[in-house]
């Protein structure tokens, strides 16, 4: 099986697209955040690879051609951000103030807890970019010497968690302003949280998607400082 497939380029590409499509279908049927297409796709692929004793390398041989589009896709994030620039101009203080406070909270809480658990540098930098969009977070983890695959999983789990908890937390902590809600959700739970913010309202959704990029860029800067602490 391995010998035949390892010569195939399209095995990795096809299985990725097909399983993702199945994930999309399950998400549409259930409508639950936990039914995340990315997560479902990964689980299905891992199951198939293990079941048929196919090496990761055999899969990656073709799948790498999907990964290379990550950089242009991240570059393209500038387009939705540009469309929301007007919003940014209206409340610059609230937006930057809130997001900077959020990014610092991320850095300090992850640093303190990592210290408590006695994590080493590799494990610590793996977790530092956990609340930002996967595209930027992956790059940070890789550059800092973290375990990129774990970073990706933690980022997705964070997003699902934020998506599920957002409404409850906003209610309990009396975060009522739609702008504040959107910023809180986007800064803590990136794109997966933004899906929930869009359900809450248009302002929440726009603010949340704006936070993804602003928070991502601010995190790049702060991680390069905080990474030196452990």
């Amino acid at each position: 099986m391995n010998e035949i497939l390892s010569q195939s380029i399209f095995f990795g590409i096809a299985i990725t697209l097909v399983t993702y499509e199945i994930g999309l279908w399950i998400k549409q049927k259930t409508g639950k955040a936990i039914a995340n297409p990315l997560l479902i796709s990964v689980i299905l692929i891992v199951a198939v690879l293990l079941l048929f004793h196919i090496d990761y390398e055999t899969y990656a041989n073709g799948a790498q051609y999907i990964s290379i589009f990550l950089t242009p896709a991240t570059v393209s994030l500038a387009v939705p951000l540009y469309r929301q620039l007007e919003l940014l101009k209206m409340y610059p203080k609230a937006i930057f103030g809130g997001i900077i406070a959020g990014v610092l909270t991320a850095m300090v809480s992850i640093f303190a807890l990592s210290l408590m658990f006695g994590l080493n540098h590799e494990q610590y930098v793996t977790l530092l970019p956990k609340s930002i969009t996967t595209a930027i977070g992956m790059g940070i983890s890789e550059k800092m010497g973290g375990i990129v695959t774990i970073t990706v999983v933690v980022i997705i789990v964070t997003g699902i968690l934020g998506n599920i908890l957002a409404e409850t937390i906003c209610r309990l902590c009396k975060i009522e302003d739609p702008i504040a809600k959107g910023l809180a959700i986007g800064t803590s739970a990136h794109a997966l949280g933004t899906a929930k913010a869009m359900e809450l309202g248009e302002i929440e959704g726009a603010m949340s998607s704006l936070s993804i990029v602003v928070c991502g860029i601010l995190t790049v800067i702060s991680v390069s400082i905080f990474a030196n602490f452990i």
Partner: protein
Amino acid sequence: MKYVKQLSIILGISFLAELLEILIPLPIAASVYGLVIMLVGLITKLIPLEKVETAADFLVDAMSIMFVPATVGIMASVDALKEMLLPICVITVVSTVLIMIVTGRVSQRIIRGQRNRDTAAGAADTDKEGR
């Protein structure tokens, strides 16, 4: 042919960003440089929005799929994951909740402060409608 033109702008910026990543000794990934270049290009109108919009929207829309191959790599990191499973769970839950609360409360305080000042100054308050 519209896609070819648009993609060549986006991929050209990606290439430029890669060069910057190699040349600048900072721990910043190429994609972040590229994102900033594209944003500056759009703001300065050097890159008109409609010249990249269609392809960019497509790439952003399909972005989740691009994370699949890297995440499947978790197969090779199972041992590292097991080793730090408890810290991962605690850190993920605690920091996500804290970030959400702090960001929300801080921005809400700033917005309300700004609104109060606006009302005090006698400015017509149209923002309240959104609430």
